[in-house]
């Protein structure tokens, strides 16, 4: 496999520390501490989206909405072109109506707006959440994160790993792993 793909699909493991938390507030505590210590590129795992975590991280609003907007507009335009151009390409009169009569075509335009909007939203999510989220390389993970545990992974070189471990323990991690 050529190198760039390799990086995307089989990224090298990133060295760092993984803290596993039982309680939400402990997790938030840890986040605060890390941010205070000037860390920004750590990853927080949670079984469900909690607004507290988002607040604690206060990240910018997701760019997915742009995907939705552009997709929707494109869809509407395609709908309009499809109906009108095809009507005039081989003009046939039906029911004494104008060849290109917009009112009925609005339905098509609307449906196309929704269709393309939805599809590009999905693309946006996949692109951002699934692929973009991996650019940090392969980081540690624990199956319990999808069940009932929270987690924080801090990328750290071997020398500063110790500091991180203690930080997480203080915050209330029930378990800390290094890798």
């Amino acid at each position, binding site marked *: 496999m050529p190198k760039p793909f390799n990086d995307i699909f089989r990224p090298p493991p990133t060295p760092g520390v993984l803290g596993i938390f039982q309680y939400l507030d402990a997790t938030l505590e840890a986040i605060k501490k890390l941010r205070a210590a000037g860390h920004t590129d750590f990853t927080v795992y949670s079984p469900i989206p909690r607004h507290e975590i988002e607040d604690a991280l206060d990240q910018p609003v997701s760019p997915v909405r742009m995907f939705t907007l552009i997709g929707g507009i494109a869809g509407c335009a395609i709908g309009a072109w499809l109906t009108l151009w095809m009507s005039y390409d*081989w003009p046939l009169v039906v029911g004494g109506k104008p060849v290109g009569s917009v009112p009925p075509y609005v339905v098509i335009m609307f449906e196309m707006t929704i269709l393309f909007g939805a599809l590009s939203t999905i693309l946006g999510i996949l692109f951002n959440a699934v692929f973009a989220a991996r650019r940090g390389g392969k980081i540690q993970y624990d199956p319990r994160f999808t069940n009932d545990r929270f987690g924080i992974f801090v990328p750290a070189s071997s020398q500063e790993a110790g500091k991180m471990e203690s930080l997480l323990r203080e915050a209330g991690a029930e378990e800390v792993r290094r890798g």
Partner: protein
Amino acid sequence: MTDSIDRRRFLKVLGVTGAGAAALSSCGIGPEPTEKLIPYLIQPEDQIPGTATYYATTCRECAAGCGVQVRVREGRAVKLEGNPDSPINRGRLCARGQAAIQGLYNPDRLTRPMVRNATGTFEAIDWDGAMQRLSAKVAAARGKGIVFLTGAEQSSFGDLVDEWTAQVGGRRLSYEPFGFEALRAGNRMAFGTAALPTYDFANAKYLLSFGADFLDTWLSPVEFQNGFSRSHAFDAGRPASMAKFVYVGPRLSLTGMNADEWIAARAGTEGTLALAMAQVIVSQRLAKVPADASRLAGLLARHTPRAVAEVTGVEQAAIVRLATEFANSKGGLAIAGGMAAQYPNGAEIVAAVNILNYAAGAVGSLVKFGADLAIGRTNTFADLASLISDMAAGKVALLFVYGANPAYSLPGAFPQALGKVGYKVSFSSYMDETAAACDLILPDHHPLEQWGDSRPRAGVIALQQPVVQPVFDTRHTGDVVLRLAGRPGTFQDYVQSKWRARQKTNFDQQWMDALARGGVYAESPPATRAVRLAASLDSIGAAAPAASAAQDQEVIVFPHPVLHDGRGANKPWLQELPDPVSKIAWHSWVEVHPDTAAKWGLATGDFLLLKSPFGAQKFPAWITRSVRPDVLAVPTGQGHSAYGRYAQDRSANAFELLGTQVNSYGGRTFAVRASATKTGEHRKIVTTEGSPRERGRGTVEVLGLARAKGLHAGDHPFHYEETPEYASGAVEWWGERQHEKASIGNYQGDHPRWGLAIDLSKCTGCAACVTACYAENNLATVGEQLMQRGREMSWMRLERYWLTDEKGEPQGAVNSPMLCQQCGNAPCEPVCPVFAAYHTPDGLNGQVYNRCVGTRYCSNNCPYKVRYFNWFNYAERGGEWEAWPEPLSMLLNPDVTVREKGVMEKCTFCVQRIRGAQNQARLQDRNVRDGDIMTACQQTCPSEAIVFGDLNDRHSRVYELAGNPRGYHVLAGLNTKPAITYLARVVAQETPSHG
């Protein structure tokens, strides 16, 4: 019996060109071109591949002798059309005439001679063998009684047979199941002449029919209907219009349905009523009383209105009123016939009506003796009865049957007697009841394959020429007889010799003219022969009708309008054609009045077992007010035990109920007393009838005579013709938008707007148009089961809505041909997802069959419900629903696509004819002229009710008619802008009720 024959052989036989073959096989939708092209050996100089040739000949479906032009494509006869030159039908044709072609290509035709072998079954035999046997039999039977039984044959063929039977010491007998003995007897009684007169319907000012169904089965329907529409139809231009038409009879036939008033006199008392009217006229001097009227005094004295009111069941006042109207019209024409002439006292009735005519001065003016209709010269039923007794007594050694099926119309007696006949020969084209009982069958050519002529009446000699090669290995009976007589030459030569004898000078020229015009027609009508009252008139009206027995019912047996005496029963078009009155197809029925039905707890479809002294039959009841409560009416035509796949074992044979005794005037009685019992069985009757009432929806409009006379150009008697206030704005806006259509693509420039005008005053509901449409547009016949489920394909349907008097009794009906209205704003078009339904530049609702995917949305959205769907593949070879089994497919119109299953189809104003005319016009660098294009329905309509043309052409007839104040558009309130303008029916009643 009839083994199917592969198409290839046909093409060889017919010498069809590749084009023909292609057209023939690729009638189906979807690309299926022929793989082989077989050229002519020698191309007939009068045939151009891809272009139709018309041959003039004569229709032999009944004895009227209408002239027809046969449309021939690549050696196949594809359509019959009336011959405009013929003085009888004036270019028009009835349903039965249209269907003649289905007799030619009928899948059940006998393909070769058959002989009964030792085991009693039929086996094929070659012609030489057959002829040898036959001549041997003839030799043996000489002197022992040779009888040649034919249908009505006033023709060279008849002459030939007469000559030959004389030569071999036999005799010829002609037989029509519905004879006209009563007419002749009645005329003899009244005027001392047995001749049949002609009736001048066209110039009558008041029509009074005593049972004569001159629009459907009586004498010469097409001719009479044409005349009738001229006098009876409302025409603002004609002061005399319209002639009121009163029908006297126990049930409403197609003819009665067109009457303005129905006098339901008790069955058999029509004569008494006529005499009473005559009495009024004479006693009150309403008309110029003829010189010898005094001789009537004695007779009429016995028939004062008061005296007869009771027996006839007609109020005295009504009788007087009718008599007055009749006489005052100064052109009253009374006709007796049909049912009235088939009672035991039929002759008296006819005589009585003659006297009425005489008293009113119609005889000589509207009733003309002299032409002497040929049909009347058939032998009487008495002659046939004597033949039967001869046969039964073994006095007949050799019997020939030609063009008649007595075993069906005389069940019981005739077949029994037939058993006693030494040797029986049939010339039938079908294995019908009679043929099946014969020993030798020598199938005759179909009339369209043979030479011949007929003399329907003085002054008219219609010529018959073969228009196609014989389809099967048949032989003209004329040739057979010539062989038997040992005479040289073919029957064609014989016919020519006959004509030569008639026309001494410059025969060849006259012959060629006859071939072109379909016969010779005397320029001037035959001289009218004056008649005087006969010596003794006292017998007339003496015979009062038998008093009705307690439980028995009067049952009248009437001829089916299209199947007639059963000869049409094996033609799917006729079977599928709903009876104009009952709208029932594919089976027989008995007409029961609601009161009677209530008495017996009868519902439509319940079976009634009718048991007469002569036989018993079961019929499903059709409950209707169009029949007297004390009468049950049954049509003939069904219930064949043989004859072919479409006719066989279908419903019941009404002839079974009738006796074979000869009545006083040598005729057969078609009214019997029978016990009627409910069997408990039930069937869903096959009817196309929806609601019998129009319910004021604006599908048909009726005007009283006075109202109609009062109309001026520009009047709008029908409110919804004007746009309602609230809609005017929208309609205006729409109008402005329309210019866009004319500015885009194919729609640029001027185009015709094809339109139709249908005059409901003229339309009689005879349904000729329906069959014509089947023939022209390759409509599939779907058969009884599917029709029961409303799957019939008839693009043109006739809607029969009863008109009723204040008592709710039907007083005639209004018939409205309903077909695609070719709307300007067609609801069907915009809903089609694939543009299969769209608007053509020339204003048609195009239906592109090969684009249709069959969503059927168009039909749902069509307020007229004139779109029909192909539920199955009706063209599938050997399929369960095959509509054109070989060789029936030969009559498919190559100009029209045969639709595949899953495709919507509908009327497009015979677009193939439009395009054909446009192509011809283009070749001649001209525009299509008004009248160039005739739709099939318009072409055949006997009453000329339909007119087709270009609504954008200010000088076209249709444009003129569309502007008629009587004109209206069906459901115009929906703003569909139909291209069909209906002209409201005008009835004599002042306050017509829609019922």
